[in-house]
Each structure stands twice: as structure tokens, then as C-alpha cells.
């Protein structure tokens, strides 16, 4: 990112790129930079302390840094003050343009964030005044229509922190369609451009742009308020937010994303969102989701072969697992479980943590995993969870026990179209030497599989069955 982009004619908001790459250590420091007084901000840098000598480059560097660390926060506050997403976005850009013009002249302000919020707000109100002067509306009415917050104490209010939380809950409001919640969150909270989001979700850019425009229209028309839900609504609304974040994460984690870097970045965005949420709202399930995402992410390098084929957990090279992420994820899982009655994300995270602590597959504590699945079934029963539990039971008690459970699920009529159910059944039959049943189930799974990498895997297994059959002739 560079200053030229801020000064460029209004296009999509610039997205921060620094520290977003998924290197091994990038998630060890979750805290965002505070807007600290300028003299300390420059300590230790090659540039002289700002108020003595300043080159244009130094100011551009500062403004870039402030943009990268604070622009989302400033936007969230401006949305609250100005009552409109688009107006706030314009105000944000105007504020940074003003900074580029004025800071080299007047010096970097002691509190850059407050300066930018104040400037953005002023310019928006000023712009509105100028526009409405011709319509002869009085200022009060104009301000009222814009929903402007007139409270002079806003600058000192600690609610600056809550503004990002308000923004997250607004973008994830259940009255908005799910795909709009995802797009709006990525756009407004994460700062991705419409083009980047469209590319990441393999959607045409105009379609996605329309989705966001319509969502903002709904917020305006239905008057979806910019607020953190009350305590009694919080658990359910939080569930909605977590669902959106996990959706974004999974989009970046699927096998198809291996070839497209921007899609992998989606997982990084989701994790950043998860960290922000935990920071602003330290609820157990928020910890649970962050933990689950970190633990999944720790295995990224081991999941796909060079050819882009899926490598099962059992066959992964565990030396490629990111131990820092595992340590952090496991600690968070524990924290989530201790914090109160266990929620589904916390339990899933615990299951992932148990897998992660096994140095080799044979060392996996399947007894603990089955126990965790029992707990998960108690609070969030579903056939898929039952299936996963059956697989764990097979590992603990032997294939026969597991296969009986899976056959029970299928006999009930559940998961008939779920390829993983048939794949799991096939695998257990194979281990029991029930080759014909294995073959039949692999065929059923193959019929339900579209992804090339997954198909190759099943075809491989079918090939092995043929070979073993031939070798016994």
C-alpha cells in the first residue's frame, strides 16, 4: 500500500497487506498496535523524531502505518457518528487526504486516530451542509436526517473500542442474507476491496458489488441499528457472527483454494476477525472458534501434496504442522472449556487439540476424542457429528464397532447423500476385509464427489481393492 493509492480518485478502500502472510510466526502477536503518541512511535526508527526533522517520506510512512493499524477502527467510529456506511467511507478517505496535506505542515497530531475521526466527521457534516444549503433545509434537520451524533464528549468516550464490535454485529445481522453478511463483513470490517472479495469467492465482481449495495440498502430501509445486542440476545447473535467468520475461514481452507493465494488469505482474514472478536468480546465460544481455526490452520502445509491432492490426517507429515499455532490454539481451547458450559466450537477445538498433541497417529488419544464427541452430541446433535464419533469409536474399539454405528445412521435414512459417510463406511469395511462392501461404498462416495482431488483419492482406494483382489487369485 502506498500514499498514492490514498490520494487516488475514489476507488475501493485500500487493504492492508502487511503481516497478513501466513508465515509461521505471524499469529503469535495478536494485539493490534495502539495509537501511541508520535514521539514514541518514532523511537528506534531510522527517521528522526518527527517534530524536529521530517521528510515527506517519513510522514507518508506514518500515515501508511496509521492507515494500516487504525483505518478499520476509524471507519467503525465514523459509521456510528454519521449513521451511514457510504458517507462514513467517504469521510474516512477525506480525513486521510487531509492528513497527507496537513501533517507535513503541522506535524503529526498527538492522537492521530482522534484527529482523523474528528476531521472525517467535520468534512462529512460540512459536505452535507453544502449540499443541503441549496435545498434550504436547516442544519438541525439535515443533521438529524444523517443521524449525526452531536454529543461533544464522543472523542473521550471509550466506546471507540466498541465501534468495531458494533460494526461486526451490524454486518452479521440476521435480517441480511448470509452471503451478504459475509461480503459486508469482509468489506467493512476487514477492508477488502469488492474485487478481492469477488475473486476470493469465485463470484463476478458486479454480482458481489450489487450484493453489498443491496445489503447497505436493507440496513438503511429497515433501519438496522448500529449496536451491540443486549445481553439476552447476545448468545444467538454471537452465534451468527461466529458462523460468518467460520464460513470465511472454510472458504479459504477448502481443497480448491490451494491454487489461489487470495483464497488462502481468507483463512487469514477469518483468524484476524476471530482475534479481534476475542479482544472485544471475550466470550467462551469466541475463544472456541479462534482456537478451532488456529488448529486447522496449523496443518495447512501438511494437508495437500505438491499435486494438490488431499492428504488425510493419518498420513500427514506432522513435522510440517505449525507448533506455535498448535500451542496457541490448545491454550485457547482449554480456556474456552474452563470459562463455562462448553459450547460446540470449544468442543470441536478440544477435539482438534487432542489430535494436534499426538506426535504420531498411533499416539492419538481416541478415548478422549470419543468423550468429546459425546459431549458435542449432547449439546449440538447432528448426523455428521454422529458419523465423526463413529469413526473415533472405530479407532478406539476397532472397525466393527464403528461400522455398526455408521450402518445405523445410513439405515435411518440420514447422510445418504453425504459422500464422507460412504467413504468412512468403505474404509472400515476395507479394514475388516469386507472388500465387496468397501467397493460398493467407495463407488457410492465417488458418485457424490465432484472435486478432482477427492475423486483421485477414492479412485486410488478402489484401485488398491482391485489390486488386492487380483493378488489373491
Amino acid at each position, binding site marked *: 500500500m502506498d500514499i498514492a493509492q490514498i490520494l487516488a480518485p475514489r476507488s475501493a478502500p485500500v487493504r492492508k497487506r502487511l503481516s497478513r502472510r501466513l508465515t509461521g510466526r505471524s499469529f503469535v502477536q495478536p494485539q493490534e498496535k495502539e495509537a501511541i503518541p508520535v514521539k514514541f512511535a518514532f523511537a528506534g526508527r531510522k527517521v528522526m523524531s518527527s517534530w524536529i526533522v521530517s521528510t515527506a517520506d517519513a510522514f507518508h510512512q506514518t500515515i501508511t502505518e496509521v492507515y494500516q493499524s487504525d483505518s478499520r477502527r476509524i471507519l467503525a467510529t465514523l459509521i456510528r457518528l454519521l449513521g451511514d456506511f457510504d458517507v462514513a467511507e467517504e469521510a474516512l478517505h477525506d480525513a486521510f487526504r487531509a492528513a497527507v496535506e496537513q501533517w507535513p505542515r503541522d506535524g503529526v497530531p498527538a492522537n492521530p486516530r482522534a484527529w482523523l475521526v474528528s476531521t472525517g466527521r467535520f468534512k462529512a457534516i460540512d459536505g452535507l451542509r453544502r449540499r443541503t444549503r441549496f435545498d434550504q433545509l436547516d442544519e438541525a434537520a439535515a443533521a438529524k436526517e444523517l443521524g449525526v451524533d452531536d454529543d461533544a464528549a464522543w472523542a473521550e468516550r471509550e466506546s471507540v473500542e466498541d465501534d468495531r464490535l458494533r460494526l461486526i454485529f451490524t454486518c452479521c*445481522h440476521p*435480517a441480511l442474507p448470509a452471503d451478504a453478511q459475509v461480503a459486508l463483513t469482509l468489506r467493512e470490517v476487514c477492508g477488502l476491496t469488492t474485487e478481492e472479495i469477488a475473486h476470493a469467492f469465485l463470484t463476478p465482481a458486479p454480482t458481489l458489488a450489487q450484493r453489498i449495495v443491496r445489503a447497505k440498502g436493507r440496513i438503511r*430501509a*429497515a*433501519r*438496522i*441499528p448500529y*449496536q451491540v*445486542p443486549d445481553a439476552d*440476545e447476545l448468545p444467538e447473535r454471537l452465534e451468527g457472527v461466529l458462523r460468518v467468520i467460520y464460513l470465511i475461514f472454510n472458504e479459504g481452507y477448502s481443497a480448491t483454494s490451494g491454487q489461489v493465494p487470495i483464497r488462502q488469505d481468507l483463512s487469514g482474514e477469518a483468524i484476524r476477525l476471530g482475534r479481534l472478536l476475542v479482544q472485544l468480546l471475550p466470550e467462551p465460544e469466541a475463544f472456541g472458534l479462534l482456537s478451532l481455526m488456529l488448529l486447522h490452520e496449523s496443518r495447512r502445509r501438511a494437508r495437500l501434496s505438491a499435486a494438490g491432492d488431499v492428504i488425510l490426517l493419518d498420513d500427514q507429515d506432522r513435522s510440517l504442522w505449525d507448533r506455535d499455532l498448535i500451542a496457541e490454539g490448545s491454550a485457547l481451547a482449554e480456556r474456552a472449556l474452563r470459562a463455562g458450559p462448553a459450547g460446540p466450537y470449544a468442543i470441536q477445538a478440544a477435539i482438534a487439540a487432542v489430535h494436534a498433541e499426538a506426535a504420531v497417529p498411533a499416539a492419538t488419544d481416541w478415548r478422549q476424542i470419543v468423550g468429546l464427541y459425546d459431549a458435542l452430541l449432547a449439546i449440538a446433535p447432528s448426523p455428521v457429528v454422529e458419523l465423526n464419533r463413529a469413526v473415533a469409536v472405530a479407532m478406539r474399539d476397532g472397525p466393527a464397532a464403528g461400522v455398526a454405528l455408521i450402518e445405523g445412521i445410513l439405515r435411518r435414512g440420514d447422510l445418504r447423500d453425504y459422500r464422507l459417510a460412504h467413504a468412512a463406511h468403505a474404509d472400515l469395511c476395507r479394514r475388516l476385509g469386507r472388500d465387496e462392501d468397501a467397493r460398493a461404498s467407495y463407488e457410492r462416495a465417488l458418485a457424490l464427489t465432484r472435486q478432482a482431488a477427492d475423486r483421485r483419492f477414492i479412485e486410488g482406494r478402489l484401485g488398491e481393492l482391485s489390486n488386492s483382489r487380483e493378488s489373491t487369485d
Partner: protein
Amino acid sequence: MKYLCLVYLAKDKWHAVPDRECASCGSRMQARGVLLAAEPLHPVETAATVRVRNNKVTVVDGPFAETKEHLAGFYLIEARDLNEAIGLASQIPPAREGSIEVRPVRELKP
């Protein structure tokens, strides 16, 4: 801002909520000053649908479309924002038996 809350119930749930419960909900809302209007409706069999095409008036028995849940009544309420409207709608007794559609009211353009 005004919101219209449309109450929908399936046939088998039509009498699931006693009238007096709906009446007291209405009174409560009125006491709070949030209720602008509310009425229950006769069942969908009593409906007639009117259309005018090419100056010709046609009347058909029944609702405008076949749906699983049918319109049972409405509440026109005054609320600060959608969250408040949702909160009020969730207190309408049929919400636990059917669905309440909440829609913001707009002004006609001159």
C-alpha cells in the same frame, strides 16, 4: 419508524393461540404507545382476490397464492429501529406457533 408485522399461521395452528392472549398483547403494546393498529382476520377460505387487467375486474375465491402458512392478522407498530421491531414482534403470541414477517413502512413518493 413504522413496521408492519404480518402474522402467518398454518391451518392446524390457526386456533393454537386463544384470542384473549392476542388481545392482552395488543393492550400491552397500546399502553406502551407502540401500537398503531392491529386486527385479526377470518380464515383464508373467506378471502377473495381481486385483479384488474385491461380494465376488466376479476374476482377469484381464496388467497392471492397458495402458501403453507396463511395470513392471520397484522400489527402496525412504531419502533425506533429494526431490533426494537423484532423484539416487539417476538412478543406477539402466534410467533411461537407460526411466523411473523416484519417489514418497514415507507412514505409514498410525491
